[in-house]
């Protein structure tokens, strides 16, 4: 796909930012299990935290292709940071822009785009992820407020974020139509972080379990209409899936670059290992797979920019890119030999970071359900 000059420039700026501000520190932040908050302020200054939001609300007004390209760049430097960026952009900022009241936009959206606040999305619960309609967190109307009780799991930036978008059941008898979306600051007294998870990858961000103990939210902070919460959470699903495909492409690309550099350097049997055809062919395969994933996500993103239905293409991009990233990262470790297994080299971390792309925003199995239901019967 041919990029426009604006898209090229946004990618170049994101790449330069990631190369200078993130890549040199990512291994260290991964070991610390935390990223300095100031990084997100700088990301917001460039425009990374509200990329598609209208400039009237402090966003960059960029198209979706540009957003996906920027996600790839940030993810190539660090996956965990790219996921905090992704949650902030969509669903949180995107949903508030699409459905929020003027007041909500004034109070919250401008804070998200300026980087003053970070957003997080609370959908998954300990007992249910893929089946989002089975959530049980309950929101009960009480005068001018809703009172929310329940527990959420796997919440990216659950303890560092300032604004939570919460999906909860308002009418247990109405099934999927009885679920609503709310927004509230995380310093609300009913918001309690139970634990920060210890995890395989994405250790630069905090994935949290959170409890709501009589969390009181003014009715004015209902997002959109009551009963539309699932649609709001899942409405931007294609967007989320394309973003994960871009994250996976970024991780894989970084693994490929590290393996390529190592293969030119490492000498065995009298020559650099890249001159052993087995290694050179592996690199060729890896490069081809990375490019294929990139074209899949760009294609889906461009369809989305054109207002076309792209659910199938987004699922295909997410499925292929996420599984590709694990294969490519594994090969990159293989090319490094024993050194690939040590955290002295970047591929060890990349391998850990890319694994989750097959899990969140719909597992690979869920993508296959989606794709198989939409098989094209016309191409006989």
């Amino acid at each position: 796909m041919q990029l426009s000059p604006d898209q090229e420039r946004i990618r170049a700026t994101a790449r330069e930012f990631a190369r200078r501000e993130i890549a040199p520190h990512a291994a260290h932040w991964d070991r610390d299990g935390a990223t300095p908050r100031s990084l997100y302020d700088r990301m917001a200054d460039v425009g990374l935290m509200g990329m598609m939001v209208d400039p009237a609300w402090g966003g960059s007004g960029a198209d979706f292709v540009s957003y996906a390209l920027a996600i790839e760049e940030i993810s190539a430097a660090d996956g965990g940071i790219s996921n905090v960026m992704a949650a902030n952009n969509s669903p949180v900022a995107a949903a508030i822009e699409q459905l929020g009241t003027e007041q909500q936009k004034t109070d919250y959206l401008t804070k998200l785009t300026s980087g003053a606040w970070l957003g997080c999305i609370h959908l998954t619960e300990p007992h249910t992820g893929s089946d989002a309609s089975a959530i049980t967190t309950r929101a009960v109307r009480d005068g001018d407020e809703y009172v929310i009780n329940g527990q959420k799991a796997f919440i990216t930036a659950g303890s560092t974020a300032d604004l939570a978008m919460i999906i909860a059941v308002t009418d247990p008898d109405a099934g999927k139509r009885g679920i609503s979306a709310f927004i509230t600051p995380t310093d609300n007294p009913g918001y309690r972080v139970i634990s920060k998870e210890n995890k395989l990858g994405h250790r630069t961000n905090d994935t949290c379990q959170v409890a709501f103990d009589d969390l009181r939210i003014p009715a004015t902070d209902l997002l959109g209409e009551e009963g539309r919460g699932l649609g709001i959470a899942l409405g931007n699903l294609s967007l989320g899936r394309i973003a994960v495909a871009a994250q996976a492409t970024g991780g894989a690309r970084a693994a490929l670059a590290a393996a390529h550099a190592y293969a030119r350097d490492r000498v065995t049997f009298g020559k650099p290992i890249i001159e052993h055809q087995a290694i050179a062919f592996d690199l060729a395969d890896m490069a081809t797979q990375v490019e294929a994933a990139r074209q899949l996500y760009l294609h889906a993103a461009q369809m989305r920019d054109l207002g076309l239905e792209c659910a199938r293409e987004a699922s295909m991009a997410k499925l292929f890119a996420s599984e590709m990233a694990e294969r490519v990262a594994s090969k990159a470790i293989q090319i490094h030999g024993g050194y690939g297994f040590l955290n002295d080299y970047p591929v060890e971390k990349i391998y850990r970071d890319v694994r989750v792309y097959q899990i969140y925003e719909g597992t690979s199995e869920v993508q296959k359900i989606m794709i198989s239901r939409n098989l094209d019967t016309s191409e006989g």
Partner: protein
Amino acid sequence: MKVVVCVKQIPDPADPGALDPETRTLKRDVKLILDESDSYGVEMALQLVDAAGEGEVILVSMAPNGERSGLATALAMGAASAILISDPELVGSDALTTAKLLATAVKDQGADLIIAGSESSDGYTGVVPEQIAGVLDLPSVTAAKSIEVDGSSIKVQRQTDGGYDDVTCPLPAVVSVTAGVVEPRYPSFKGIMAAKNKPVEEKSAADLGFDASQVGWAGAGQEIIEVTDAPKRQAGEVIEDDGEAFTKIVAYLENMKVI
């Protein structure tokens, strides 16, 4: 406060291109980018306008083939508009001709301050800012590491080998800025998208009142006679660490008078 910044668009140093064997000058028919050493001047100008609370930054650039990529970067950083001097007649212009053209383009802008990089990363003549000052008959301050506006004059810290000089100079003036003295901002995405709607006025040599005999190869007072490779660097001294290597390193550094 109106600040004009002279910026050069050069072949990407990461992909440095080649010399034309005929003219012994750099081939410039590749895609050009903003010379990084000019991004410091742009940043300084933007900071001065911010501090003044009003005004704008105007870019002036001379480049072949109507090249605008480097200007777009500086416009995305926050400059308001640009003047691009581009004309096939200008190929081969030397530093003095370049300075005359830039000065002529700058003259009518009503600038309070003109900033340029001390030297470009491709040509390295290092004389254009002072020549512009000469042509415009304005005071010139070189190698600035900071600029502070104080009413109708500026206070400049001027980098020297041993430290810096404090220089005061009336406005308008031409100041050349040393690379590395400020942290150039990243162009914001909003800036990138706004840049394409910012005015870039393209001017030919004739527009600026020059005829073909005064510019390009014809008007050049200099000719590059020969290009030779820089002498290869001598191999450094290798110190084997036998547990006492630090004494040798300390002695070496003392000898260089750095400690």
